[in-house]
């Protein structure tokens, strides 16, 4: 019971995952960011670890997915299973970088955006939730989720 509660809010206690860095510029085409933020393809295995980690990706706070080793998954959002069949890499990149471009009042946090935020805790100021490399890793991983 106690584990459940502290895990749910474990993201409270961890330091920022990404150090301050310049935001890379990217081009939006429709509902997608077609080009890799880093110019390189991401690493799907690293991406899985990011998604599964409650203090790094935070994804499982809200989403569920094919993570049998993770008993505590959220249901505020659709399952990530099949995300790679429903979306192109560019759509997934857009979804992560700034989900409000797709759903204006979404609760999904903007993982690679620094503007239009208020009262960000000092420890996270000027930092994106994920780095450009991490975004690419997560995109690569999500593209493996075909069903």
């Amino acid at each position, binding site marked *: *019971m*106690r*584990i*459940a*509660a*502290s*895990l*749910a*809010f474990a*993201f*409270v206690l961890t330091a920022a995952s990404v150090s301050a860095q310049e935001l890379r510029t990217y081009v939006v085409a429709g509902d997608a960011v077609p080009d890799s933020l880093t110019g390189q393809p991401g690493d799907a295995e690293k991406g899985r670890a990011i998604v599964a980690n*409650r203090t790094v990706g*935070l994804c*499982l*706070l*809200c989403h569920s997915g094919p993570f049998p080793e993770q*008993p*505590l*998954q*959220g*249901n*505020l959002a659709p399952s990530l299973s099949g995300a790679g069949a429903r979306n192109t890499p560019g759509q997934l990149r857009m979804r992560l970088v700034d989900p409000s471009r797709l759903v204006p009042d979404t*609760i999904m*946090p*903007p993982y690679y955006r620094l503007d*239009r*935020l*208020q*009262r*960000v*805790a*000092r*420890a*996270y100021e000027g*930092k994106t*939730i994920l780095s450009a490399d991490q975004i690419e890793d997560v995109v690569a991983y999500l593209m493996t989720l075909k069903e």
Partner: protein
Amino acid sequence: MKRPGFGLTLVLVFAASFAAAQGGGDKRRTGYQDMSAALQQMADDETSNPGLLFVKAGEVLWKQPAGKANKACADCHGAVDTSMKGVAARYPAIPKDADKPVDLEGRINLCRTGQQQAEALKPESEDLLALDAYVTHASRSLPIAPPADPRLARVRELGKALFTRREGQLNLSCANCHDDNAGKKLAGATIPQGHPTAYPVYRSEWQTLGSLKRRLRNCVIGMRAEAYAYDSAEYLALEVYLMDRAKGLKIESPGIRP
């Protein structure tokens, strides 16, 4: 043009809203109702509820003279079950001769510094939590009844604005979780509607009793927003708003949380 089925829809909609009105239409749930049966039982049983240890400690403090005035709370107020009944249900309130509200802990500290001429008790200190728990316990099962003081309206509005404003690196508002997604799972935890009925609360994760402010602070930090100072106008405004939002719900303190 006649739309078949339109009339039927109207009837159904009317029937549904009528049924809701009959049932009071109140969809509010307290955190207690979301707890497991085991935790509910533990909270109900005065011998197993760990919060009751704080209530007992509060009773001792209540009767103990303190400060330069060497007076006990009991010297002015007598027994809690008469003098303090319903008091916790109507705080935060604006004290006489003041223009800003205080919550119950703030009120206790006003008596400490003003009447007893003692030092104010520190936030989350055992003594402050014990007195808070003891006085709040005298209102257990009574409905939350915020005062009608018109000066509170402005504070309540500020609280509502804070509750609905997105903040922090995760760009979430309190309302995103507690109004729009209550009942759903945030990882392992059921998101409660966020009513303040059970506070101060015993939390096993904390291994102690904690105030409502401590809970609010945890949520603010969870959003990766900058926590407010313990004595900030912001927490107080949120408390005022939350008590208004929970008007009529019964005090459950000391509650138990995992």
